[in-house]
């Protein structure tokens, strides 16, 4: 006959299996910190090298002659930051998954990705459409809002904290819509500072 301890172990194992098979927990906190640093660096370059001051994010500015090349540079810069951040996240997750004896491409990571991709692709396409119609001022708020929605949606399949990260990004995006002149500042706060705080929190809580 089984002992009490065996039943407690059974329950613990059931709980652990439920979590392991439904959540992808190899997301790295340090990768979040790195993504935040890239974003801050990107915002600094946009501000001081490309002379992209917050006030210039208005529709009139983009009707001026040299604005379009500046905008192209800015979009390239944003893409570079994105690629670096996603690349770092994949690399760090790969290492963390290996350490945990998990595969990075398994049932949970696929579901995580699927739940992120629908809001993110919707937002991405919407932003491309807006760009083509020169609605520049809405782009910074919308990236934050759709990114936040994607995180909120994906949090079911990873750390619970991802949900709060998503809610903060959505709130910043909405605030940014009220103050469209400060898009770059909200970008730096949302993608930069908030990511760094979140990454440190995850690192301290789950990775030490």
């Amino acid at each position, binding site marked *: *006959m089984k002992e009490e301890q065996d*039943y407690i172990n059974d*329950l613990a194992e059931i709980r652990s299996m439920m979590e*392991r098979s*439904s959540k992808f927990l190899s997301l790295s906190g340090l990768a979040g910190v790195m993504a935040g640093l890239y974003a801050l660096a990107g915002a600094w370059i946009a501000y001081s090298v490309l002379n992209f001051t917050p006030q210039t994010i208005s529709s009139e500015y983009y009707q001026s002659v040299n604005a379009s090349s500046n905008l192209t540079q800015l979009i390239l810069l944003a893409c570079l930051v994105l690629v670096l951040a996603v690349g770092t996240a994949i690399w760090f997750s790969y290492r963390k998954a290996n350490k945990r004896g*998990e595969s990075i491409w*398994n*049932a949970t990571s696929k579901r995580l990705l699927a739940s992120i991709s629908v809001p993110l692709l919707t937002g991405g396409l919407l932003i491309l459409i807006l760009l083509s119609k020169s609605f520049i001022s809405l782009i910074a708020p919308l990236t934050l809002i759709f990114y936040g929605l994607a995180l909120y949606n994906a949090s079911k399949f990873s750390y619970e904290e991802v949900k709060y990260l998503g809610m903060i990004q959505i709130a910043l995006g909405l605030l940014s819509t009220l103050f469209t002149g400060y898009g770059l500042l909200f970008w730096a706060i949302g993608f930069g500072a908030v990511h760094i705080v979140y990454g440190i929190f995850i690192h301290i809580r789950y990775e030490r």
Partner: protein
Amino acid sequence: MKFSIVDMHKAFESRVRLGIMSALAVNDELDFSSLKEFLDVTDGNLATHLKKLTKLEFIDEEKSFIDNKPNTRYFMTDKGKKAFDDHLKVLEQIIKSQK
């Protein structure tokens, strides 16, 4: 208060079968290789336990082909859900009663 071992379904005596049921309780369906990764067991071992659970009608399978390779996905039946819930309840009661 005593709970006899009779209340415990034999299907859940095995750690592997308990693991399969736990994973399927929170996933609509899982294929063989996913289950194998979560449980960390050999193909043969997993297949044997899956067969037992299928025979009890606790789980069911759906066969299909992905890139010409057979792919079997498993899911919990209503009967399996009820049995698993009951098992959890018994576990809980045993632990409570012994405190």
